[in-house]
């Protein structure tokens, strides 16, 4: 159930250039699944006004904690990055429908492809897939090395490839170039990142089962305001979906991207 909670900051650190990892503690952690997101109010003041949607990067149910990884880029995320341990943050969540971990059978292989700030939700996904006995391969794209993060974390869970625009870390080019080269064998792919990447993947692996996570500017985050609409492809039940409540994760081919 969606809840609003004042959660406590238990950890905040900069893990790459302008990229922050923040751990929050509270009850709503119990309801979270990978690929879902939370909607965060960064201040009680009236500016910045709107909540910010941020993916759940990892869940520590026993500790009642979860972690987000976000880029401090605009007004809201900058305010968030100034929070200190012990501060409270107003969190609405968990929101949306996450990645279906059950889409790969035990013993199967999942390909996880992330780009930039789309990488975080793949971490909890990978943890849960591994827990189910699914082999995970991670292909993670970043602008340059200084923006890359979580190498150790992903490497521990499975084969991990890095791709950067300038080759400063791992392969140079687009993730799709590397994928072309690697010719990986897998059962299902999961992806989150920039639209061109999602598009390329969807056509590259046309015959594979795949799930993509989308972004859009949001108002309510719960499906009431029609801010985050995406048209669907022909043959779908409805001619549009709401990214916040029907998504953010969709099966490949459902929405027009």
């Amino acid at each position: 159930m969606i809840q609003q909670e004042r959660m406590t900051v238990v950890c905040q650190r900069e893990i790459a250039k302008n990229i922050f990892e923040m751990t929050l503690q509270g009850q709503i952690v119990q309801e979270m699944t990978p690929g879902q997101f939370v909607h965060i109010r960064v201040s009680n003041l009236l500016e910045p006004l709107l909540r910010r949607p941020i993916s759940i990067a990892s869940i520590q149910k026993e500790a009642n904690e979860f972690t987000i990884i976000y880029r401090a880029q605009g007004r809201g995320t900058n305010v968030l990055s100034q929070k200190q341990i012990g501060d409270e943050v107003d969190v609405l969540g968990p929101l949306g429908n996450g990645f279906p971990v059950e889409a790969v059978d035990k013993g199967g292989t999942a390909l996880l492809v992330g780009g930039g700030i789309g990488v975080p939700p793949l971490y909890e996904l990978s943890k849960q897939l591994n827990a189910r006995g699914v082999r995970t391969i991670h292909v993670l794209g970043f602008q340059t090395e200084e923006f890359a993060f979580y190498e150790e974390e992903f490497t521990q869970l499975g084969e991990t490839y890095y791709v950067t625009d300038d080759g400063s870390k791992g392969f140079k080019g687009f993730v799709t170039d590397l994928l072309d080269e690697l010719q990986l064998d897998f059962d299902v792919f999961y992806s989150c990142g920039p639209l061109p990447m999602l598009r390329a993947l969807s056509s590259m692996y046309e015959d594979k089962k795949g799930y993509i996570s989308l972004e859009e500017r949001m108002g309510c985050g719960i499906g009431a305001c029609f801010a985050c609409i995406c048209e669907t492809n022909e043959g779908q039940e409805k001619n549009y979906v709401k990214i916040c409540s029907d998504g953010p994760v969709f099966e490949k081919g459902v929405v027009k991207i």
Partner: protein
Amino acid sequence: MNRLDIQLPGLDLKNPIMPASGCFGFGREYAKLYDLSQLGAIMIKATTLEPRLGNPTPRVAETPAGMLNAIGLQNPGLEKVMAEELPWLERFDVPIIANVAGSTTEDYVEVARRISTAPNVKALELNISCPNVKKGGITFGTDPVIARELVEQVKAVSKVPVYVKLSPNVTSIAEMAQAVEIAGADGITMINTLLGMRLDEKTGKPLISNVTGGLSGPAVKPVALRMVYEVYKAVDIPIIGMGGVSSVQDVIDFMSVGASAVAVGTMNFVDPFICPKLIDELPAKLDELGVKHMKEIIGRSHR
């Protein structure tokens, strides 16, 4: 004693708080968060004759203490609203105010005629002020002669009282209010959004795909208050006030300048529990002001 109840044409409100149209869908999402029967009323999303997909995204953008939207009246269309949304809402003990929109007078009239027959629709809110659609909407809302004619025709077919939602993007909102009063409107709701813009910082192009969007939220409250103040002086029909309400003090402010009830829009996104919170906080606020009943506040700025 209920210290908060308000009686308006067609509407028996338990309290003066209601979500504003377009900020609450048809209630389904918020119903998962709290019991909608607590609300004074619900203003549902604009309904048009045919289903509409609205404008391309991005449709919203944040601004200082406010936001822009250009949803473009996306809605499932009259049929579906009548067949699914309104019957679903019947489970709650709350009057529905149906926001009616269209591109032509005929559209408005047809939607009004039919939607006003739904058992839980207790009033219509004629949306002549949507800035985000090419045809209809705002043109009806900026010309008093056209507005008057439309309201007359809608009044002729509606089974329930008709409130008219006014646009703030006019030189004289009092003149618009008088025109719709003469045309027989039972009440006024105001304000809709102020037309605004935000750019993509890199390209300098409009961020919202529709180029302009409607500005709402706390930023517009001073303008909304001023307009309610002016309209209260100009007409004798009741006003439902809105524009940036974010606190119980804001509710008091809108009623002070002359609103009989208050709608909350944008702040539902910031705090999804804001409506029940405001309702809870009102009695203590009345105590603080030394006032027995909410009604005593209405129009006190003018006394």
